[in-house]
Structures are given as structure tokens and as C-alpha cells.
């Protein structure tokens, strides 16, 4: 006999599976069939916006540059979060340290700005 939490986990899994399967089966039974193959059915959005092109295109390299900067700057927040949690206990010393860190980071941002890496065109 498995332990109590394991049982509830199994029940949860079973219910989740049954719900998903049930929805699919119900949709199959209740759906309205198109009488003839319609071109509309094959479009990206069956109703609403008309798609203006295909998604299978090459993205411009500048998306990559922006993504790169986003990843780097976004990750620095990882260091700010623990400091923010303990900011009161760390006092002014902690603030100065974090300010120095952000300051150096801003130098990097300044460099990227001046070198035109953040310019879209």
C-alpha cells in the first residue's frame, strides 16, 4: 500500500488524464463537420486576422543582439534579488556594494549604447 501522499498524487494524475481525454472525445462527438474541404480551414487563424506571411522566415540578426543583451541584463537581477531581501539588515554598506555593481553594469550598457548595438536600424 503506497503512502497517503503518493495515492493522492496518483488520483490527481488519473483525473488530469481523464479530463484531457474526455475533452478530446467530447469534441470529436459534438463537432460540426465542414461539408466540403474549405480553403478557410487551412489558414492560420480560421477566423479573425488574416495572416500576412508565413512564419518560416529567417529572423534578422539584430533580434539576436537584442536577445543577447536582454539575457545578460536580465540575469543581473538574480544578484539584486537576494540583496533586496536582506537590504535592511545589510544597511548602507550593502547599498554601496550593490550600487557599485549596478554602476559597472551601467558602464556596459553605456558601451552597448554608444556602439550602436541597441539601435534598431
Amino acid at each position, binding site marked *: 500500500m503506497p503512502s497517503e501522499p503518493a495515492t493522492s498524487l496518483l488520483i490527481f494524475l488519473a483525473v488530469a488524464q481523464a479530463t484531457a481525454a474526455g475533452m478530446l472525445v467530447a469534441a470529436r462527438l459534438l463537432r460540426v463537420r465542414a461539408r466540403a474541404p474549405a480553403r478557410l480551414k487551412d489558414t492560420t487563424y480560421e477566423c479573425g486576422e488574416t495572416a500576412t506571411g508565413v512564419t518560416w522566415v529567417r529572423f534578422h540578426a539584430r533580434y539576436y543582439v537584442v536577445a543577447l543583451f536582454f539575457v545578460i541584463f536580465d540575469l543581473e537581477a*538574480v544578484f539584486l534579488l537576494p540583496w533586496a531581501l536582506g537590504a535592511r539588515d545589510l544597511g548602507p554598506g550593502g547599498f554601496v556594494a550593490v550600487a557599485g555593481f549596478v554602476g559597472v553594469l551601467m558602464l556596459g550598457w553605456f558601451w552597448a549604447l554608444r556602439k550602436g548595438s541597441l539601435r534598431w536600424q
Partner: protein
Amino acid sequence: MSVPSEHLFVLAAVLFAIGAAGFFLRRNLIVVLMCVELMLNAANLSFLAASRMHALAAGSPGLSLEGPTFAIFVIVVAAIEAAVGLALVIALYRNRQTVSLDALTDLKD
């Protein structure tokens, strides 16, 4: 309810093994980079698992500080490595129009 620490370590080891296997077997550089990320995240998981294990042994509910600290630095190292790696892959692609490891054959004995 609590998951035994061993399970976390086993999960980390399995993740690391999958990453290592992919690193050696796959030829697409992007996939190789993903495998390295997988290995690094396995390291993260075991840092946290070890930290939790020590905290549990000491009877405190949270994590001991070493694990999460290390994990934060690993996350950043991993991100920077990925950024540099992708840039290098792009440089290679512009030279050779391929991202396959098999294309790296100009330098050999």
C-alpha cells in the same frame, strides 16, 4: 510529505548523464550547447539538493545558504557562456553555412 534527498541527487545525475551523452553523440552545435546547459543545470539541482539535505539534517526548514548562493553564480556563468557560444556559432555559420560539428575539420593533424 518529503522527497528523500537521494532522489534529487539521482535526478541530477540522470540529467547530467543525458547532457553528457548528448554532448558526445550529437553533431549539431546548437544541440551541443543545450546539452552543456543541461549539465550545468544538473549541477545547480545538486547544489540545491545538497543544501536542502544539510538544512534537514540540522533540523531547519529552509535551505542552507551555500547551495543557493552557488546556484545563482552558476546560472549567471551558464547564461554568459551560452551567449558567447551562440555568438561563436553564428560566426561559424557565416563562414561555413553550417552549424555541424562535422564541419570543424580544417584544423587537424
